[in-house]
């Protein structure tokens, strides 16, 4: 297997072959580029180090635990109070016999975000300390696949919709879980904006080429 020109790139949306951009002066270095044919976003150079991503993803992973287990809200209705956490909401659906919906919701709201953050933390750690590790490639692929199924922001908006539906029929008290979940969503969005997969891939050593 031989590589042609290592710097050559292609647009992921229209397959246009793009020659490497070589700025003469350091102030000419661009932080992002668009495909001249289809206008798609080509790359944005990382504005932060993998260590920043590592720190942020550990923060998010820590927030993930209370966000999932602490109650999102407490609802008082007909004399009794019901406290519900994110995990309980999924488990209840499963107990009602809706295995498929429960699984889909579990993947999108808990499993995919957790696995994505974990893979990203591992990938960041390896790209700082062990760029030779074959696992780095594996984690980077996982991050890409899992980020499609992580839907934290959708869940937060859904929660607000449910809240408006409930507020007329019962007394609602917001829980600690909601604060953690909101913080988790903000951290997650920040990570997705700062994380640049091509920067990580450039650190991976290519077979046969030093």
């Amino acid at each position: 297997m031989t590589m042609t020109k290592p710097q050559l790139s292609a647009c992921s949306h229209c397959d246009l072959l793009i020659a490497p951009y070589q700025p003469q002066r350091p102030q000419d270095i661009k932080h992002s580029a668009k495909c001249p044919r289809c206008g798609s976003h080509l790359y944005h150079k990382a504005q932060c180090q993998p260590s920043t991503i590592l720190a942020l993803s550990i923060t998010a992973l820590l927030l993930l635990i209370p966000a999932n287990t602490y109650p999102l809200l407490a609802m008082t209705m007909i004399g009794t109070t019901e406290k519900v956490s994110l995990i309980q909401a999924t488990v209840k659906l499963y107990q009602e016999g809706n295995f498929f919906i429960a699984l889909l919701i579990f993947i999108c709201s808990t499993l995919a975000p957790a696995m994505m953050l974990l893979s990203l933390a591992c990938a960041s750690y390896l790209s700082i300390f062990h760029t030779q590790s074959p696992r780095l490639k594996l984690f980077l692929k996982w991050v890409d696949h899992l980020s499609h199924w992580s839907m934290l922001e959708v869940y937060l908006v859904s929660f607000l919709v449910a809240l408006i539906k409930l507020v007329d029929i019962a007394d609602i008290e917001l829980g600690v879980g909601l604060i953690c979940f909101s913080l988790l969503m903000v951290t997650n969005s920040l990570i997705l904006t700062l994380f640049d997969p091509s920067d990580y891939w450039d650190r991976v050593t290519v077979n046969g080429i030093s």
Partner: protein
Amino acid sequence: MESAKNNGLARCHECGLVCRFQPNSQCPRCDAKLHLRQPHSIQKTWAYLITACIFLIPANFMPITLLVSQGKATPDTIMSGVYALIDEGSTGIAIIVFVASILVPLAKIVGIMIILVSIHFRLKISHKLRLLMFKFIDWIGRWSMLDLFVISIMVAVIDKGQLLVIVPGPAATAFALVVLLTLLAAKNFDTRLMWDMEEDNDWTN
């Protein structure tokens, strides 16, 4: 303006490395199997879309939730839920739910079908416009999950045994399948196919 494919080069779908393409070869950087285009992209996308179309019917006409109060069940479809929200005076939320659960799945299916048909019949539609439409469809698709999340929260919170219970109806599973299938359809569609057909023509349109 030439594509990588015309130069015998393939962009790895996993890591983005551009390398020389040989059949059954692997990416030298990430070991993924190399493809010039996603294999069977159009067939897979059609299959997911047609299945989604079929499930769209029960998703919209069967009850998505059942409100059981003292032994009496009140079924609610997606549309009646939207009407109920308008009656309560929360028109803004009604619009969000209507867009996320009725408009988006339908627009997604129709939108991707238009793109597939235009590729098949080589229709002269602006490539940039089509790509923009696809990107929008791809981005907005995940918001269809909204209604399912709302149901899961409502089911968990309103549980008073004999007095008042909310149970997901048969449409909930159908709706979940529609969302899942349209997400997979968008994921399996290779946008590069749109640009392949007019490679030699003027690309500025």
